[in-house]
């Protein structure tokens, strides 16, 4: 198809009839500025070919001229095959359609609409036909760089064209349906990653199998426990049988009786031996006691003799110690007398030093009293001055409020007088030279010209010539106002106690000066008598002076009471003492303190000597007392011994005790021999221990047997109970059911596994086959596109999907595919146009040429790329008609091709 004519009238900006001049095969280029109507022509072309002439769509309404009374008329001529066709359609008003072929009308009205669609292989619609490949190849403004999406009809047409060449490869709708169904079935079973899907039959079968397996394992574990219980029960039953063997038990009891008899006989022999040994011990004790009594008496006799010798020696020692003590006492008395003398001297020296210190302190305190007295006098004077100034201030000052009241009253008076004066007649007196000094105004001579407001009667005397009295008109209100203002002023002055405002202000200035003086006096007073806390400064000074005087008086009194200053004055009376100067007093004090130190040293030495002598006397006295105590103790011991056994009885008693000791010893020896004989008859400890062990062993064995039998009986009962309980639970039956359930679940899972595997295989095989088919299917498109693509991107290849959508491009054999959406705007536009051109070329080469119309395309291309795109367009135009509408006249200067222009038809025909 080649468009050969396009004329419009009443369309968009074309009210009158306009025609596109120059249309023909190959590359057609319409360069016109914005608002020239290029896009309007594009839409008019679409309307003429695809729209029913009677439709009233919004798109068609926008096509008409604003406020136009004429219909929108479009005329399109095209060549298809060898025939020339002309379409005339009128829209909106006076609608109509007519199709002519080679100059003859072949259809009109609705038939013409549909005949056009039939010619162009378009699917009919209610108001507009599906534009099919025209929709793909006719690119409206601002759409050239979008990823195109062919309509189903366009895809079907492209598919038909290609499949005519490569055969039916995609499987069509049936293939889609099968794949969809397989995917749906698989989706019910598995996730996208091929794992069992939650809630799906596959996962359910797995879960059922796992649950059955777990149930069986649990039951088998319980069964194993039960079986273990059965084994344990069998073992216990065997144990019970063995433990209940009566013959073995009887033999054990007989052995026990024999061993017990042997043990008892040995115990009895041991008891008899123990009794004999007890008697032996008693005899031995009796003999030992007799021996001890004899020995004790012998010892007493010897101790009495030793005590008597000791007492004699101690008496001699005491006499010697007494003599030494007497000599030491005499020495001590002498030294104590010397110490008393030294103590008296020390006391005297200390008193002299104390007096010297007091005299020095009295002199210092007297100076302090003097200084305080001076400050107090000055402070009192300052206080009196301050009081005086304060009284003067109080007398002089006028309150600020009073001054302000005076000022207010005065201003009110002035205002009232001004008002009255303003209303008063103005009297102007201008004396002439001859009248100088002859004119009086209210008695005052007027020498120069004068203007007076006559607020009151005014008398002007002109020498003797005349008296002129000027009486102002009565103005009672103003007079009253002046009078009231005047009274207010007088009242304010009275209140302030002054005669005038100037006096009041002068009083305030004077008061301010007095106040400054008072503050100076206060500062001086504060420096002379500073306040102490809350206490007034003068009071504090007075207190300090009184305290200092009291201290001086006390010191003076003490000094006066000193022996070397004693006088006849009454105690407590302050007396002025004539003291030497401070240095003399200090020297006296130092001399007195040195004499005191010497006396104190001598006294300390004497004290030490007395102490030593006293210690010697005490030591000797202590020794004497110790000797006396020893003598007393020896005498007491001697007395005790004689009390126990007097000298007269001692010899007889010694003889009797020796005989008793010999007799007790004989009895002990007899008892010892008897005990030894009985002990020899007792079995040895080893024999007795072995017998005891046998008894113990047999007793334990019998008890253990009985206890074990009881335990076994209890264990048997417990196991029987547990087994019976387990048996009642139907474990075996449940296990058999679980085995069956597991087998059933495994069988179901195996079937499901097989089904899923088959579906997965089928899906994979279909997808792989479709991919291979798609590659084959798209090969012609890629072949058609390759020359164009390489013109811009040498070595590049485009990735297409079977629906003719573009996924991206790779810029070399090994280069990765760059997704279409990530390309720059310019590249996207160029690639999109190239794909469209390629599809157009594909159709053209297969006998179905469709013009390519690009409205304002290549807006994003740089200079280099746009040149190469012109080459592409030129090359594409060799196979099909390409119509380019653009406003970029300069950029498209080198595009070449057939230039188009929009001209009024009268000019075109001309």
């Amino acid at each position, binding site marked *: 198809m080649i468009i050969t004519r396009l004329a419009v009238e009443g369309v968009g900006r074309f009210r009158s009839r306009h025609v596109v001049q120059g249309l023909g095969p190959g590359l057609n280029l319409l360069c016109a500025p914005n608002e020239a109507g290029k896009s309007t022509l594009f839409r008019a072309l679409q309307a003429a070919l695809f729209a029913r002439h009677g439709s009233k769509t919004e798109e068609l309404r926008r096509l008409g001229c604003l406020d136009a009374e004429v219909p929108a008329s479009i005329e399109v001529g095209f060549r298809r095959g060898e025939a020339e066709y002309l379409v005339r359609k009128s829209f909106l008003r006076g609608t109509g359609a007519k199709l002519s072929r080679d100059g003859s009308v072949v259809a009109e009205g609705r038939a013409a609409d549909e005949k056009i669609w039939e010619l162009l292989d378009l699917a009919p619609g209610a108001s507009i036909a599906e534009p099919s490949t025209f929709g793909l190849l006719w690119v409206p403004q601002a759409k050239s760089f979008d990823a195109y999406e062919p309509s189903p009809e366009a895809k079907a047409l492209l598919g038909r064209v290609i499949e005519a060449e490569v055969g039916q490869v995609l499987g069509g709708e049936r293939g889609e349906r099968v794949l969809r169904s397989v995917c749906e079935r698989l989706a019910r079973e598995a996730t996208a990653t091929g794992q069992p899907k939650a809630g799906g039959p596959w996962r359910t079968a797995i879960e059922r199998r796992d649950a059955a397996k777990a149930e069986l394992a649990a039951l088998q574990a319980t069964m194993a426990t039960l079986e273990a219980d059965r084994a344990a029960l069998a073992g216990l039953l065997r144990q019970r049988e063995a433990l209940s063997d009566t013959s073995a038990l009887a033999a054990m009891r007989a052995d026990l009786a024999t061993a017990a008899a042997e043990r008892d006989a040995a115990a009895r022999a041991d008891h008899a031996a123990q009794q004999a040994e007890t008697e032996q011990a008693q005899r031995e004790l009796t003999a030992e006691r007799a021996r001890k009594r004899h020995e004790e008496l012998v010892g007493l006799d010897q101790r009495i003799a030793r005590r008597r010798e000791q007492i004699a020696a101690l008496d001699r020692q005491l006499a010697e110690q007494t003599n030494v003590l007497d000599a030491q006492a005499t020495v001590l008395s002498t030294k104590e007398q010397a110490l008393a003398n030294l103590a008296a001297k020390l006391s005297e020296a200390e008193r002299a030093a104390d007096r010297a210190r007091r005299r020095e302190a009295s002199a210092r305190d007297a100076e302090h009293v003097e200084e305080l007295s001076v400050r107090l006098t000055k402070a009192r004077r300052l206080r009196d001055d301050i009081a005086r100034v304060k009284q003067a201030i109080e007398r002089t000052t006028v309150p600020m409020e009073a001054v302000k009241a005076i000022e207010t009253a005065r201003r009110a008076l002035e205002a009232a007088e001004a008002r009255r004066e303003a209303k008063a007649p103005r009297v102007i007196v201008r004396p002439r030279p001859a009248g100088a000094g002859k004119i009086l105004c209210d008695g005052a001579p007027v020498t120069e010209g004068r203007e007076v407001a006559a607020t009151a009667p005014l008398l002007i005397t002109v020498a003797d010539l005349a008296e002129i009295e000027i009486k102002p008109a009565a103005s009672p209100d103003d007079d009253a106002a002046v009078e009231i203002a005047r009274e207010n002023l007088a009242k304010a002055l009275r209140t302030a106690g002054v005669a005038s405002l100037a006096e009041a202000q002068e009083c305030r200035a004077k008061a301010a000066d007095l106040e400054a003086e008072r503050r100076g006096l206060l500062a001086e007073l504060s420096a002379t008598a500073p306040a102490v806390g809350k206490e007034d400064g003068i009071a504090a000074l007075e207190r300090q002076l009184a305290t200092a005087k009291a201290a001086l008086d006390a010191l003076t009194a003490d000094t006066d009471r000193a022996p070397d200053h004693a006088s006849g004055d009454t105690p407590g009376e302050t007396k002025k003492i004539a003291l030497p100067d401070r240095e003399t007093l200090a020297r006296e004090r130092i001399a007195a303190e040195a004499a005191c130190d010497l006396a104190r040293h001598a006294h300390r030495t004497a004290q030490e000597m007395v102490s030593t002598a006293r210690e010697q006397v005490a030591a000797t006295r202590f020794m004497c007392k110790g000797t006396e105590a020893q003598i007393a103790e020896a005498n007491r011991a001697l007395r005790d011994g004689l009390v126990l056994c007097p000298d007269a009885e001692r010899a007889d008693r010694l003889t009797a005790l020796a005989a008793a000791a010999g007799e007790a010893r004989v009895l002990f020896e007899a008892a010892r021999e008897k005990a030894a004989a009985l002990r020899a008859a007792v079995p040895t400890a080893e024999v007795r221990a072995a017998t005891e062990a046998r008894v113990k062993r047999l007793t334990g064995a019998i008890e253990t047997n009985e206890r074990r039998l009881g335990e076994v009986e209890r264990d048997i009962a417990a196991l029987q109970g547990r087994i019976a309980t387990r048996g009642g639970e*139907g*474990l075996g*039956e449940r296990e058999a*059911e679980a085995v069956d359930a597991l087998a*059933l679940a495994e069988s179901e899972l195996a079937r499901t596994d097989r089904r899923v595997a088959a579906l997965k295989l089928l899906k994979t095989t279909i997808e792989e086959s479709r991919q291979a*088919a798609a590659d084959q299917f798209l090969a012609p498109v890629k072949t058609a596109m390759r020359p164009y693509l390489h013109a811009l991107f040498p070595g590049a290849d485009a990735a297409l999907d079977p629906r003719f959508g573009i996924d991206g491009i790779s810029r070399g054999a090994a280069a990765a595919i760059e997704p279409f959406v990530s390309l720059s705007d310019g590249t996207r536009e160029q690639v999109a146009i190239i794909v469209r051109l390629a599809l157009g070329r594909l159709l053209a080469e297969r006998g179905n040429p469709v013009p390519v119309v690009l409205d304002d395309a290549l807006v994003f291309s740089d200079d280099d790329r746009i040149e190469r795109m012109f080459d592409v367009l030129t090359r594409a135009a060799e196979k099909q008609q390409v119509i380019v509408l653009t406003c970029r006249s300069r950029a498209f200067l080198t595009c070449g091709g057939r230039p188009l222009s929009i001209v009024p038809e009268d000019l075109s025909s001309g």
Partner: protein
Amino acid sequence: MRLVHTADWQIGKPFLRFGDKAEALRAARLDAIEAIGRLAVAEGAGHVLVAGDVYDSETPSNVTLRAPIERMRGFPGVTWHLLPGNHDPHRPAGIWERFSALGPPANILVHLTAEPVDLGPEAVLLTAPLTSKAETRDLTARFDDTETPAGKIRVGLAHGAVTRFGVKGDEGEAGNQIDPTRAERANLDYLALGDWHRTCEIGAKTWYSGTPEPDRFDSQTVGTALLVDIPQAGAAPTVTPRTVGTYRWASESVEIGEAEALAAHEAALRQTHDPLSRLVLKFCVRGALSMVGRQALAEWLERLEAAVFYLAADLAVRVRPEANDLEAIDFDGVLRRVAETLKARAADETLTLDERTIAEDALMALYLEATA
């Protein structure tokens, strides 16, 4: 002397593999007890000898334990002699102590020891109860030395595998070997055996009764009990198998090459196992079919499943796509290529059998989807 010999009731067997038919199969085993009782009453047999495995498990539930008691209670004129088998051996605190604790009626005797028991005035019963699941000794050996009053019929009752069967492998379920010549060695007039689920004559005086209600394929077609007549001591018994079961259990195996042959198989099944509604059928199909034929087989099996009581189909049918099968998928295009790919994969001998089977399944799924 007339008695009924039965064994291997295995009450409590779950049959869960049979899905919703399990309950009916469980009930049929209890119904068989009543059928045996009716047989004994009808034939005037005063004793029913149950040669072991009364229960399927030695720890059944209480209801399962009581169920056969209640069935036997309905035949007070018949004395039921129960013997522990390898499924329900007598062990301390075991099933038979629980059984006795339930207080069964007097006409039910459980033989837990080897003590001889009188079967009326003319016969003595010698028993060999199992006390474990797998007994290594031949417990019937003691029959040889067991004295009975002269002139009395000696009847043995035992559960286990006759020795020669055990040698072969798995015909007897476990050890518990029994000398097949025991009847002659112990001078028995009849030895009633249990364990093998198929009626079998070991010798003139030694029989396995089989189970009264089958529970597996490839064993016993229908439940049977034996009616035994022993004229007198030393005389040969007369043994008559009698049907007491409800369902027929059959295994059929066919080799198939075309779907049209299925009609003939169906006719044979209806003739052999009438009525089909009582047939528990294991149907094994081998061979190869076209995809059309495979689809027809699936439909035929569906119909057969509806006709029989239970159908366990075991299919080992290879799919052999024919030209019209592939054309039915598509003449050209993706689907046709997918079909060709899967067909080649199914025929690829380098792949495992499982992989080829999966390819056949996928191809069949494609066929069903494409022709739906």
